[in-house]
């Protein structure tokens, strides 16, 4: 019984474990590098999909985009004020690990085939984003964001953000991962998200990035905005058939 109480006390009251300054310094830069690199590719994808095409130059678009993304990523990693990460972190601190991992996956999927076959263009979504599972995940992320925003603005008393430093939050996220993988045996989207979440949780435990708070690792305010847009779009499309 005493052991159980000790374990319970540890789960709820264990102090935060925060990342070292050097880990934060380079971890945040790497996260911004991934987000910016994916942003460049995503922009290229949007232009390529909606524009008139590049004619004979189109065969060079894939490698050119990959090089541009690489250049932006290297610039983001560059120390000092020349780096866009230096200024983005001033305003927004760091992307969440989940944003960084999603962007890294996008970069990987986009660049690997485009290097092999220059005509192919990266795709953010293959339609799975409109699935019920994806909408459910977007709704879950949106709810978590509202809880955290309400906590920040003192709309309610229990401090949801402070809870993110405790092992109990990690246990909750692991429970969610278990449920996702158990329920997701028929859903590729759930399995894919489960794998990403597992990677994020493992990175968080061993690096504590970006801040030592689990909520900062799984959801940043920009990702929250994106999730809500996804949710609204998905609900709208379902509503109009």
């Amino acid at each position, binding site marked *: 019984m005493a052991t159980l109480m000790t374990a319970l*006390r*540890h789960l709820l*009251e*264990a*102090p*935060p*474990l*925060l*990342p070292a*300054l050097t880990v*934060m310094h*380079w971890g*945040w830069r790497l996260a911004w590098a991934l987000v910016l690199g994916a942003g460049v590719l995503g922009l290229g994808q949007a232009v390529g999909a909606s524009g008139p095409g590049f004619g004979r130059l189109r065969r060079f678009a894939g490698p050119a985009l990959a090089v541009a993304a690489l250049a932006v990523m290297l610039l983001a990693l560059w120390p000092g004020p020349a780096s866009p*990460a*230096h*200024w*983005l*972190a*001033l305003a*927004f*601190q760091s992307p969440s690990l989940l944003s960084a991992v999603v962007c890294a996956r996008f970069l990987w999927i986009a660049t690997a085939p485009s290097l092999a076959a220059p005509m192919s263009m990266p795709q953010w979504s293959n339609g799975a984003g409109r699935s019920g599972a994806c909408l459910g995940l977007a709704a879950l992320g949106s709810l978590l964001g509202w809880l*955290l*925003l309400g*906590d*920040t*603005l*003192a709309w309610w*008393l229990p*401090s949801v*953000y*402070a809870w*993110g*430093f405790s*092992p109990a939050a*990690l*246990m909750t996220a*692991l*429970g969610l*991962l*278990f449920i*996702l993988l*158990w*329920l*997701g*045996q*028929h859903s590729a989207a759930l*399995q894919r998200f*489960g794998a990403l979440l*597992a990677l994020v*949780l*493992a990175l968080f*435990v*061993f690096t504590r990035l970006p*801040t*030592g*708070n689990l*909520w*900062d690792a799984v*959801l940043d*305010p920009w990702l929250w905005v994106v999730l809500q847009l996804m949710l609204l779009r998905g609900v709208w499309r379902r509503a109009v058939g």
Partner: protein
Amino acid sequence: MTASGHHSARPGARHAGLAMLLGLVLLGADAWLRPLVPAPAQALWSAAKTPVGTHLAPATADAPQTRASAGVLQPLARGTIPMPANTPAAHASSLVALPAGDAHALLAFWFAGSKESAPDVGIAMAGFERSSGQWSAAHWVVTRQALGQQLGFAVRRIGNPVAWRDAQGRVHLFVVATGLGGWAASRIVQLRTTNWPLAQQQQALAAMQFDVVRVLPLSWLFNTSTLVRTAPLALADGGMVLPVYFELGYKYPVALRFDAQGALLGQTRMSARTHVLQPTLLPLDARHWLALLRDNRAQGHVAVAQTQDGGAHWQDLPDLALTNPDASVAALAGAPGQFWLAHNSAPGSRQVLDLSASDDGLQWTLAQRLAQGQSGQEFSYPALVWAQDSLWVSYTDQRTRIAWQRFAAPGARSWMR
């Protein structure tokens, strides 16, 4: 179940099993890496910080023999702290006492520059030399450029330094650093001396160097709008509780607990109200503390919250009778039943700064008028510390310099003996 169902269920079960295994590994690693759960917090009297470990006994009706002398203060000295050269603006001082063997009795930190929120504002420091009885020349200890370089991201403005000395004698400095926006877009950066304590020469002060420990993660919304202003409350375990506050629209106080080395142990919201900020902590006994707060409303009074379990839970109390013109206050517990509060007492302005005394933290009487100016003049943002057997007060003098006063407090001295 169909055959295909069997086939498709296996990967799901296998993935769930892997998730469970991963969960056990991650929870085990997390438990192994994390610090131990700290003991419940117990406060120290300001006048009894040495030796560490002398924690407060619960207050009783007959224990504090100094109550009769509460509020009796004898002025010893006053003046202004030297400013860095060619620096016309100063604000928000913080004082920290040094141990008896040090060449300086206390250190003062404040922010200074061409004007508040100017890009050239830095954190200045001076020490009160025991041998000469004078303040040393001011030194710059933190600039926003150096802060940004160490943090790895830009810092627009800095201000509101708060100093604390940890169990190893290192001085920690908590500084407000703004992001994209004004003060409401601030974050708190923790710095720590890398070469302190040094040899006991006076010139050691100029060599004092601070390195960034980290930006404290305190809110989900881009970690923005948490500020620090008031002094920490020392704990019996060598750690402290640092009162901070959120101020983006809603204003509420938060208590941060640190261990004896300055590692963050947790945070607790201190009030359900959203118009109070800049809490200053006053221990009534080891576990029963008050937080006195600046009231952001017009016609406000000094607000109060209390905890009876060492900061784990807080409750709001009715406001004090003292008016508060939306101005920072500073409280100090010198000895059992001997509490001081520096506060602006005139409604609607900061032209009067008083030092009041109390034996219960709720009923206050005027002990000293620290400063009184003409309309439009400002004496504000006080800081209190107990050092060299006396009470020290520093405050902003018309946003151009930091003034200080020193008082003998016989009651606290007798308690110390």
